[in-house]
């Protein structure tokens, strides 16, 4: 059912999210990001958790970053809210609460409805490997933002 979005077809939100859930459970992708519902009972499919494995040869290597993703009612037309739970020092991420600034991350700033949670996570991971981020000093491992 409407697995591929044609240019004019608007896929209902829940369908999209279900699809993404399935992908998250099946581990589609290269295994460096993972996502799933925060609460399996969540009928609205709004709250998601994501996980990014720090890319090798960067300062993030060997660390696992946990994120919270919130897909609002307008998803996928509107981008989701993304927040790091694990403390991280990275451009575009608010250092006090871990909120990812939608204007700083290109996929969020120029969101397309063909994008997905996977795309967001993978993009964040790719940014970790960028020159400007890959060497930033990081807080000790295991710390989380308080809110």
């Amino acid at each position, binding site marked *: 059912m409407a697995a591929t979005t044609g240019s004019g077809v608007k896929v209902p939100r829940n369908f999209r999210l279900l699809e993404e859930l399935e992908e*998250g*459970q099946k*581990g589609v992708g290269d295994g460096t990001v993972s*996502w799933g519902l925060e609460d399996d009972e969540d009928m609205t499919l709004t709250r998601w958790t994501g996980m990014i494995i720090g890319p090798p*040869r960067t300062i993030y290597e060997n660390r696992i970053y946990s994120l919270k993703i919130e897909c609002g009612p307008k998803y996928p037309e509107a981008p989701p809210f993304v927040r790091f739970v694990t403390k991280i020092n990275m451009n575009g991420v608010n250092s006090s609460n871990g909120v990812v600034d939608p204007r700083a991350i290109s996929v969020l700033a120029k969101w397309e409805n063909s994008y997905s949670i996977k795309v967001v996570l993978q993009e964040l991971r790719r940014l970790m490997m960028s020159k400007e981020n890959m*060497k930033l000093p990081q807080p000790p491992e295991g710390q989380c933002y308080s809110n």
Partner: protein
Amino acid sequence: MAENGESSGPPRPSRGPAAAQGSAAAPAEPKIIKVTVKTPKEKEEFAVPENSSVQQFKEAISKRFKSQTDQLVLIFAGKILKDQDTLIQHGIHDGLTVHLVIKSQNRPQGQSTQPSNAAGTNTTSASTPRSNSTPISTNSNPFGLGSLGGLAGLSSLGLSSTNFSELQSQMQQQLMASPEMMIQIMENPFVQSMLSNPDLMRQLIMANPQMQQLIQRNPEISHLLNNPDIMRQTLEIARNPAMMQEMMRNQDLALSNLESIPGGYNALRRMYTDIQEPMLNAAQEQFGGNPFASVGSSSSSGEGTQPSRTENRDPLPNPWAPPPATQSSATTSTTTSTGSGSGNSSSNATGNTVAAANYVASIFSTPGMQSLLQQITENPQLIQNMLSAPYMRSMMQSLSQNPDLAQMQNPDTLSAMSNPRAMQALMQIQQGLQTLATEAPGLIPSFTPGPPGSTGSGGPTGPTVSSAAPSETTSPTSESGPNQQFIQQMVQALAGANAPQLPNPEVRFQQQLEQLNAMGFLNREANLQALIATGGDINAAIERLLGSQPS
């Protein structure tokens, strides 16, 4: 409703598919499910009972992936699976994929203990808590980074490599390429404190296997290392990069003087290839060649540490003093007869001042010398390696004993040297002293070299033998009497130097003196001085006399 794991079913994994999983309607029966475990590199399938706990799952995984269970981190649907959870709890069913991250023990993120070696980091946060780890930890560093081992901590901050050996080579390259960085590093108090501990340095150096090989080949190095004085001086020099450059320059120049000896250039070249190659190889393994350079220059540190940290603008030290001592003693390998022969000849030092001056001039014009210099300037590594050669070391020892060099580095001397009028005045004094020497030899105490040569470019110093020298050399930086020293040394130099070659300036210039007299210059003394200064050229002497009259 009984969709079998084709998970386009309802997203309530706890309810629907779990019950629908088994073909039978008995959810209690533990069904074996196949779960794929995926790492960034590998993928394996595991068959486990569906009600197993995460802990059990991890145990199965650890066998297959050959890791400890506590190294495994399992992630499913964006959540980390804790050991006490069950697979069902997270909704892991047949055919689904779980992500695995294997934490490696050696995490060079600047977090963990030994390998980060943050003892010497310049920079900041993440590694500074570890920077308290004593320098001794660097000894246990299996990679033996040597003198700047502490900088490995920089990995988490400044360099992209987190693998330790990569890091080491990266550091080396970066540091070799960037002297400014080197300077910064040297100025870091941690590094300096580490460097100031000779025992530590020795251990560090010895710990490196290449160094050990080198020591086997050249036992002198081990002597060096074991001598605490030398080590200390070495480290002082190493700490001060300006001083180090200064040292290198001196040594370089001293080396160049070897050119002047007949056959010396060939001997030099041979020495280089014999010694330079293994040194080069070893030094390139070793970080930055620093320990070598400092080792090589250590023996001259006696003179180096005394003078202030000003640049030595003086062109050349005495060409004769170093070669005799070194050529005979230093060569570990191919000492040629020319070497020892030249040693003998140049050990006959008296009266060589002028010859030295000429040699100095000719040295730079030797094409071989120029190519050597060019090579050296193009490849700073070369200098370092050269410096570390054993023969250099003994040469440096003799250089350090050379009082003249110390004198040279006296800042007053230097400023005097660079002032042309001062030089001229000095020359005039010389001439006067020469006259004095010939006319009243009783006034001259003894023979020692002085910084300004007799006739020459003001560079070369005379031969070594000295009695009064120690008193002068012990205080090259003393404010008390640079002038006195000058005069004394000049007197001696002139006396010593001029005795053989200018038996009697009066006699030499007898004819010219008479001419000057006839022209009306009646001041015999002044005439003589002028003639001496101009070397017997009447016209020039006249101009001198005329020029000095109004003043």
